[in-house]
Each structure stands twice: as structure tokens, then as C-alpha cells.
């Protein structure tokens, strides 16, 4: 099976998934009890005002008509107006999504690089003090939710040892670049605001690391165990017998097959980063999409809820396709047979 066909098939499947998601989220948002119009206007608003808002939001029409109108808007890039911010949801997402993406991308990098590195080092010196240390830290990392790390980090770096910023995206007094992509790092590079770039980067460190620790620990454990498993195989022994240095065997011939399970699990972890980002954003007072989404849900802000979830849905499917491509690169059996055949 060619790579082109592989991608086309995955894209088609993703569209199907997204269509299903749109129906589901649309219905769930409307089935939840409570009148969004009333909630938006408050208990003291007169009945006619509430009625007008309902009309404006098409809430008076039958469900299937509402869905049709919503999808029509969606396809034109219009997600409706937020009841909470009184702005188009698209604008809100444009404002909040890049901030979260920066955290998530950074977290994913920390997770992947840190996890794989620790896994390889552990497997290189099995049952050494280093391996044991990684193991203990990994268990801690897996069982501790990211918001706990976030709180601990704020405590350490905010009070005890203030070397890294613990609030927001930029320090006060640092000149922010004009908003172009919305990604602070990109914008500050584009407009040559290097001070802002450095400052934004420093602000990213703690939230991303707090968010990454769980997945990193997981990745380290999986990388280590699949490396250890593959070390016991004949092909590793054969390569030793052929005089190929252990360093080459480990980092090339054993690492490639061992990364397949790591990458597959990491795909789920990266998706979970968006969910966990909410609490971390809250702790670091970092204005992101996860926080926005939660506020929307608490206030039954219909358009914002569906909008945020659809956008995250698109991101999830994109991440999944990318991960599948990485797995296909690592595992020729997936690439050439269209399915894994174990070991």
C-alpha cells in the first residue's frame, strides 16, 4: 500500500469521525438541562428579551434545522456568537488556541525527548542506581496528576526559588509583538521582538513541564521495557556477534522497533494534554483554550462549547494521522501490509 493511499484513507476516515463528533456534541450540548438564553441574560432579564435571544440563536427551531444551520455556518468558518464574551466564537478561539498549542507542543517535545532519552539510558544500564531512580520517578510521574506538579512548581519557583516566571504568558513591561499568527513565540520572532521571545519561552517552561511529566514517565517506562525485550532477541545477539558496537545496536537497531509502542501510547498522551492543560492553565493563570472551554461549559455557552470541541476534534484527528505516519515509518509491516503483525 502506497503512502498516498494510506493518507487518503486516513483522511476519509477522519472526516467520518469528525462528522460523527459534530452530531454527538451538538446533541449533548442541547440535551444538558438549563436554558442557555436565560443563563446568559441572568434571572432578572425580562421574558421578551430571553425570547428574542432564543430566536436569534435559532433555539426556537426544531433540532434538525438547528443542526443544519450550525453545520452550514461551520463549513463557512462561522461558529456563531459566544454568549459569554459576546464575540464570534471563532475570534475567541483564535485568541486562546495558540497559547494552549504552544504549551501542548512544548509538552509533547519534553515528553517525547525526555521520555525516550530516559528510557534509553535506563535500558543501557539496567538495574543500576540510575535505572532504579528513573523507575521510582516514573511511577511518581505516572500517579501524580499534572495540576499537582503545577502547584508544586508554583510553590518552588514562585516562593522558594524564584528563577522562572509562574504567571501568564509575558512579564509586565515586556513589549509584546503585534498579533499576527497568535502564537507569541512566532509573532515575536517575525517582528524581531527577541526580548518577548525569550520571556515567552521562559513562561512556557513550567506549565509545559508540569503537563509533560506524566506522559514522559510513561514514555520512559515503555521505551525501557520494549528495549529490554528486544535486547533479548536473536537479532540483537547476532549483531553483537558480528562485532557491531553496542552503542550502534542500541540506538539504531533496537531503538527503532522499540519506539513503535512508545509512539502509539504517546498519541493518546498528547491528546490528553489538551484536557489536562485546563488545570495547568488555571494554576499558572495562563490564558488558553482549555480554560475558555471549561468556562463555556459551566455557563452553557452552546456555540462556544461546540466550537471548542470541534476544533479540538480536528486537532486530535490530525495528531492521530501524524502519529500513524510516524508508526508507519518505524514499522514497515504497517506501511507495506496495512496492519501490524505483532513483535
Amino acid at each position, binding site marked *: 500500500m502506497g503512502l498516498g493511499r494510506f493518507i487518503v484513507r486516513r483522511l476519509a476516515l477522519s472526516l467520518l469521525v469528525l462528522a460523527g463528533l459534530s452530531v454527538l456534541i451538538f446533541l449533548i450540548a442541547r440535551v444538558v438541562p438549563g436554558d442557555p438564553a436565560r443563563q446568559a441574560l441572568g434571572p432578572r432579564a425580562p421574558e421578551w428579551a430571553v425570547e428574542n435571544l432564543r430566536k436569534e440563536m435559532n433555539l426556537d427551531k426544531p433540532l434538525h434545522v438547528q443542526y443544519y444551520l450550525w453545520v452550514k455556518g461551520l463549513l463557512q468558518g462561522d461558529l456563531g456568537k459566544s454568549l459569554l464574551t459576546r464575540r464570534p466564537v471563532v475570534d475567541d478561539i483564535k485568541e486562546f488556541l495558540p497559547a494552549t498549542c504552544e504549551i501542548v507542543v512544548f509538552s509533547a517535545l519534553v515528553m517525547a525527548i525526555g521520555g525516550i532519552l530516559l528510557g534509553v539510558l535506563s535500558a543501557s544500564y539496567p538495574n543500576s542506581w540510575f535505572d532504579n531512580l528513573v523507575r521510582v520517578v516514573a511511577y511518581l510521574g505516572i500517579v501524580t496528576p499534572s495540576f499537582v506538579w503545577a502547584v508544586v512548581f508554583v510553590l518552588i519557583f514562585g516562593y522558594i526559588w524564584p528563577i522562572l516566571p509562574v504567571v501568564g504568558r509575558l512579564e509586565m513591561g515586556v513589549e509584546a509583538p503585534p498579533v499576527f499568527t497568535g502564537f507569541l513565540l512566532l509573532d515575536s520572532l517575525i517582528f524581531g521582538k527577541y526580548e518577548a521571545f525569550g520571556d515567552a519561552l521562559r513562561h512556557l517552561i513550567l506549565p509545559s513541564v508540569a503537563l509533560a511529566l506524566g506522559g514522559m514517565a510513561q514514555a520512559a517506562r515503555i521505551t525501557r521495557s520494549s528495549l529490554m525485550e528486544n535486547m533479548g*532477541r*536473536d537479532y540483537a545477539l*547476532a549483531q553483537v556477534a*558480528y*562485532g557491531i558496537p553496542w552503542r550502534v545496536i542500541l540506538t539504531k537497531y533496537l531503538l*527503532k*522497533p522499540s519506539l513503535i509502542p512508545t509512539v502509539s501510547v504517546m498519541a493518546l498522551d498528547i491528546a490528553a494534554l489538551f484536557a489536562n492543560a485546563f488545570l495547568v492553565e488555571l494554576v499558572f493563570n495562563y490564558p488558553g483554550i482549555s480554560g475558555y472551554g471549561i468556562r463555556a461549559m459551566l455557563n452553557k455557552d452552546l456555540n462556544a462549547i461546540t466550537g471548542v470541541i470541534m476544533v479540538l476534534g480536528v486537532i486530535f484527528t490530525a495528531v492521530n494521522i501524524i502519529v500513524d505516519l510516524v508508526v508507519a515509518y518505524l514499522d514497515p509491516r504497517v506501511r*507495506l501490509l496495512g496492519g501490524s*503483525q505483532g513483535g
Partner: protein
Amino acid sequence: MESGALVEIRDLAVWYRVYGGLLKVLDGVNLTVASGQRVGIVGETGCGKTTTMKAILRILPRNAVLPRGEVMFQGRKVLGMRGRELQELRGQGVAMIFQDPTAALNPVFTVGQQIMEVIKYARAGGGPRERRLMALSALKEAALPDPERIMENYPFQLSGGMRQRVCIAMALATARTLLIADEPTTNLDVTIQDQVLRLMRRLVQEKGTSLILITHSLGVAREMTDLVYVMYAGTMVEVAPTDELFESPLHPYTVGLLRSIPKLTGGGIAEGVPGRIPNYADPPAGCRFAPRCSRAMAICSERKPEFFDTGGVGHRVACWLFAAGGGAVV
């Protein structure tokens, strides 16, 4: 040590540290391979054939202990080798072919990548282009059709027989002094077995490589080797030129082993050797075969027999029955 010996193993013991004790697997193995010789090692599964071979290449698992003995390769002590010397031994001296070609090839790298890496560390000289040409010619020598395509194939795209040919090509892509083949055909179809063996015999002959062939098939040993060692439970019990061994086996275990070959001409199920290989955690004190031996004497369970010379040239046997006859020093 005999001069001119390529491999000389003297009184080698290998134990494995396991939970709750030691498995004393190899108990004083002696083996000599002369340059250009083709030597077979036969014996039941689990008798330590592979462990002995792994000792030659120093690829024993981490839990192995070597309490005594010496392995010499071209007159150099293998067990004391480190760094560069060991790399030379593995990269240029000895190549090993494993029992299961599917397990011996990395599933996520192409055949070409794997062979070229072996050539690279055999220090055969030349750059990537030259390595590629060497790999191609090795595949061609191993009678693989369309080597260009096979270079790009992954192991799972090849049949079992082709995989083993790839392993042979890998082993003999560069000049080697010794080829160790560990039951190279056990996992193959019967029809393929013969082809692969013939290929191996031809290549070894053409290149003048010495061969150690591990097998539990006496038929294969007879066809492929000049000299056969019979191994039982971590010791060599008999050694003789191949024809001599099949015509006049001496050790009761060898005799039983030869009898256990099912004959195509009828006669029903063969007698075999009753009993099993002893428990390595607590092996018999004397001859390890004594508990299964129908001709065991009092001394057999007390003292381990040395190799005794027999009448035949190069025919020696480790059995008390022949201690007096050969007049060997005990």
C-alpha cells in the same frame, strides 16, 4: 595446545546464575577445530551446544559465570580479550548463523541495511558504494534470485528458506576464518533444509572457511562434517572422524543416539536412550550419563571420566568402559 588448531577449548565450564542457585551447564568441555576442518557437534536439545558456541564469541548472557577453562582462537585467549581484539574476533574472525532466521533478522530494517552494517564492522574497507556491491554479491552467492530487490526487502517479505540464505550471505559476505552454524536448518521445511545445507557446504568449501555445525540430526552431521563431537549434558563424550563414528561408535550414549534414528526401511519406532538430561542445578557427581547408562559401573557415579584414546585415529571417548583398553592416564 596442538599447533595449527584454529579453535581450542580446554576444560571449559559455564554456569548460569539463576534465582536460587547455579545451573552448572558446561562441565569441562574440550574441543579442537583444525584450520579448514568441518566439525559437527551433535547431542540432544539442552546439552550445552549453543552455550559452547556462544563462549567462542563471548556472547554469553549476563548471568553466565565461567569458573574455569580457556577458549583459544588462532592461539589467542578469547576469554581475556577486550575492546579492539574482541571486535576483530567478532567482525573478522568468526561468524555465527542462528537457528531461527526469522528471529535473527531485525524486522524493521531492510536486508540490505543489515548486511551492509555487518560488512562495515568487518572492516572490509571501502565506502557505502563498495559495501553495497559486496552485499549484492553475497546475496548472489547465496543463490538468492534478484539480489537488487532483496536488498530493499524487509525480512517479513521473504520466505523462511530465503531468510536463512540471507543469514548465510551476511555471515559470508566478508572473509571469515570460522563459520559457526547453530542448527541452521531446524526451523526450515524438509525440502528447503537440503538446499540450504548444500549451499552452506559449497560456500564453506569455496572460501576455505572452517565450520562448526551444531545439529541434533545425525544425518546432517554425516553429510556435512569431517569430525563429529558427541555432547551430553555439558560434556563431550566422544569424538571421532565422521565415518569412524558412524561405523564404530563406542560411548553408550552415542550408541543409543545412533539407534534412535528412525529408519525408513521399517523396524518401527527406534529404541533411543531412555531417561532425560540431568538437572543442571544438581548434576550427577561422576559421569553425567551414568544415571541413564545401562552399562554403568561403580566408578561411573564417583569420578568423571577423561577422554581416553581408543584404537581409532583421532577417536577418543570419555567413558570408564574404555579406560583400560586405551591405556590412557587417568
